[in-house]
């Protein structure tokens, strides 16, 4: 109950007018930054970090956390409106979100994204508040073999996303895996698929690929049919129907669970988490065919999972000083400059600091909901802008976004190349989602596998002698088998 006392005190601090103001500014800035493709939470925080430099510690931290959450929200907006995922985690949102926008339902899509994010994020924060230290300890027990099991489980999603032709789905995934291997091997430094080009050795950046595959491809396809606007369908209601929201309640809860617990694990990227959550939802649903064509649960699930994962990611950050994603690493260094000393003693030694921060995260979540819901109408109207204006804007955003990741024109070239590739893939009916998923999962798979082998002097037996690993691998195989059978029946 002491916890509650601290939390209340934290709220008192967070709710002062000054701090609220900074939370607001942070949320707005973060959202703006998140909306810009290529500038995800990581670069967003890095860019905006100096701005907080001349603030006293508490407001500065509140602003930083607000920026982080805001960036996550912003990324979903463009994903839904124009098929440009603002960052890795929003890729899955495009699958159904953009389809909803095409059908004139951008409003409900955005609204559900905001609501789901809020619900899941808040629930996740509750988890953070009360369970941080024991959860952190649990997270430590996940070692390389367990990660391998987790990745095997995630790969079963590839089969699920393969659409009509399994061969095409798998080929797409294999392509993604190949792209992931280009560059210097992160573990041994060996050059792979470099062909003498120092640009290639830098690896093929993920964001550049998805900008090309989603944004640019979409414009190329759109131009074919001489689109007059992103959505020609009449702009329907701005809010989802009550029935729809009710059916999403279960979705949001499931997404929170999946997102929070996977977000705890350092090294489990948000992208993978949103795919898994989407897949869970699809399997759970009685009408899975709707997914990919504008199912509202297909937006609620990944969005919720994202925000829950964000909250989950704070557990190892606070309890162990371990950032689960690069964005959190930047956030951590920002926080440390203000005197935060993460570690299990954080809650004991600096309770004021932590609880104010957590309270302001709750506040930030509410603030973002309040900010975004009214804006839904505004954003949705963007879909009606003449395509002649939208297309150049989208492309300019894409070019800048790809460039800004590493300040490199090579990445812009990559985006162009994948734009062309994406177009071909659409024409030849190769699904793009498996490519993206494989791109995310392959590095994880490789490091988990190689590390596991080196832990056991090269013996693969380690993968079958650790209980959690075995469970995960068997689950993955079972899920894959189940999906294959389900396809056969169709």
């Amino acid at each position, binding site marked *: 109950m002491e916890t509650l006392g601290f939390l209340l005190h934290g709220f008192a601090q967070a709710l002062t007018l000054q701090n609220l103001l900074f939370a607001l500014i942070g949320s707005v800035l973060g959202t703006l930054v998140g909306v810009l493709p290529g500038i995800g939470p*990581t*670069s967003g*925080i*890095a860019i905006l*970090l*100096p701005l907080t*430099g001349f603030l006293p510690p508490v407001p500065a931290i509140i602003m930083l956390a607000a920026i982080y959450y805001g960036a996550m929200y912003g990324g979903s907006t463009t994903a839904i409106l124009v098929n440009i995922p603002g960052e890795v985690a929003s890729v899955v949102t495009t699958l159904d979100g953009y389809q909803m926008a095409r059908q004139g339902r951008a409003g409900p899509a955005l609204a559900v994204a905001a609501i789901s994010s809020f619900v899941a994020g808040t629930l996740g924060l509750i988890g953070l508040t009360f369970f941080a230290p024991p959860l952190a300890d649990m997270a*430590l*027990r*996940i*070692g*390389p073999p367990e990660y391998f099991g987790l990745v095997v489980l995630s790969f079963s999603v590839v089969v699920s996303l393969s659409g009509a032709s399994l061969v095409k789905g798998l080929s797409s995934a294999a392509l993604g895996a190949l792209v992931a291997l280009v*560059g*210097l091997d*992160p*573990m*041994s*430094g*060996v050059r792979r698929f470099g062909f003498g080009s*120092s*640009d290639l*050795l*830098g*690896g093929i950046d993920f964001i550049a690929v998805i900008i090309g595959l989603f944004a640019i491809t979409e414009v190329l396809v759109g131009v074919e049919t001489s689109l007059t606007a992103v959505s020609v369908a009449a702009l329907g209601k701005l809010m989802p129907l009550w029935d729809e929201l009710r059916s999403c309640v279960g979705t949001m809860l499931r997404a929170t669970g999946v997102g929070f617990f996977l977000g705890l694990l*350092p*090294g489990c990227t948000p992208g993978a988490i949103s795919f898994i959550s989407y897949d869970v939802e699809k399997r759970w649903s009685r009408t899975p065919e709707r997914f990919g064509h504008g199912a509202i649960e297909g937006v609620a699930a990944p969005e919720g999972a994202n925000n829950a994962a964000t909250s989950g990611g704070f557990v*190892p950050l606070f*309890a*162990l*000083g*371990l*950032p689960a994603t*690069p964005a959190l*690493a*930047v*956030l*951590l*260094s920002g926080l*440390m*400059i203000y*005197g935060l*000393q*993460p*570690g*299990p*003693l*954080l809650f004991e030694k600096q309770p004021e600091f932590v609880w104010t921060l957590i309270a302001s995260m709750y506040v930030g979540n509410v603030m973002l909901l309040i900010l975004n819901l009214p804006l839904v109408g505004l954003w949705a109207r963007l879909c009606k802008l003449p395509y002649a204006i939208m297309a150049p804007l989208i492309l300019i955003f894409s070019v800048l976004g790809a460039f800004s990741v*590493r*300040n*490199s024109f090579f990445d812009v070239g990559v985006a162009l190349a994948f734009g062309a590739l994406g177009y071909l893939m659409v024409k030849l009916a190769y699904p793009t989602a498996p490519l993206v998923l494989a791109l995310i999962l392959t*590095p994880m798979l490789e*490091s988990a596998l*190689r*590390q596991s082998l*080196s*832990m*056991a*002097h090269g013996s693969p037996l380690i993968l079958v002698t650790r209980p959690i690993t075995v469970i995960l691998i068997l689950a993955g195989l079972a899920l894959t088998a189940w999906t294959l059978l389900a396809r056969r029946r169709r």
Partner: protein
Amino acid sequence: MLRILLTGLLGVVAAAGGADAQPAYPTKPVDIIVAFAPGGGADVTARLIAAYASKKWGQSVNVVNMPGASGITGTLRALGARPDGYTLLLEPHATSSMLFAAESDVPFKMDGKTPIALVTLDPVIYTVKEDSPWKSLKDVAAAAKADPKSFRYGVGGVTAVASFSVSQFLFGAGIPVAETNRVVFTGGAPTITALAGGHIDFAGQQWSESTGMIGGKKIRGLAVVHPSRLPGLPDVPTAREAGFPDLDVVGWQGLSGPPKLPAPIVAKWAGLLEEASKDPAFLEQALKVNKVIAFKGPEAFWQFQQEELKKYLPLATKMGIRK
């Protein structure tokens, strides 16, 4: 427009008041290129420097991240920029001595730059899990010698600091390295996590990477490679005290510029950084992000790098790291 006017005005005032006839450097924003992702060891030092310089000179100094190819991409960019002092390079051990020790085929030369100053050190701490039966480096050495096949150590990358620090220790203690298990992680943070979770038994990462878990009592520091004990870790003996005086691998970050950078600019930066190294506020900031301030001027910095290279080359060859 206003900005240009103001800057011009500042320039005139500075020139009128100052001893030099040229407009005082810097007259426009300076970029420090960090060839690694934001949040990492190099990035943190760059931001420390940038904040300090911005304040002192009233001109914004920006950190530009250009990660890729283990730091080669960004470094190439910085070294190829115009030597006018407006594009500089944050140079860490990873793109200098350790890189040249490990790789024989680097697309730039170690002397193809203008060294400015060494700024921060990030000392190595040898660590084990909190409840590990090993209480000192000597225990570790004994255990590894007795049963190398079940000794697992982690490194944050084959050519990273840890690779050198741990291998220096293992070779020095006469342990049959080829029979041990080396687990390679993609960075310091995963390595430390794995150590805390008991998936590996030993690590030798940098202070900034290890401090969180040490403070949280998940891992224990056995020795720190530094002339004296680190503030905040009074119970961790130095390597010398632990009986291994020859251990001397250390992570560091410094500032450099493209080749042929004019001497006055180098001097100005070196002067500023030397001043910073004595400024208590700066030192305090640095400690907060777990960096030790250690200043070396341009010549001393270059000297330092060459000595490091001499030290690491044989180690890299023995480890089979050198390609």
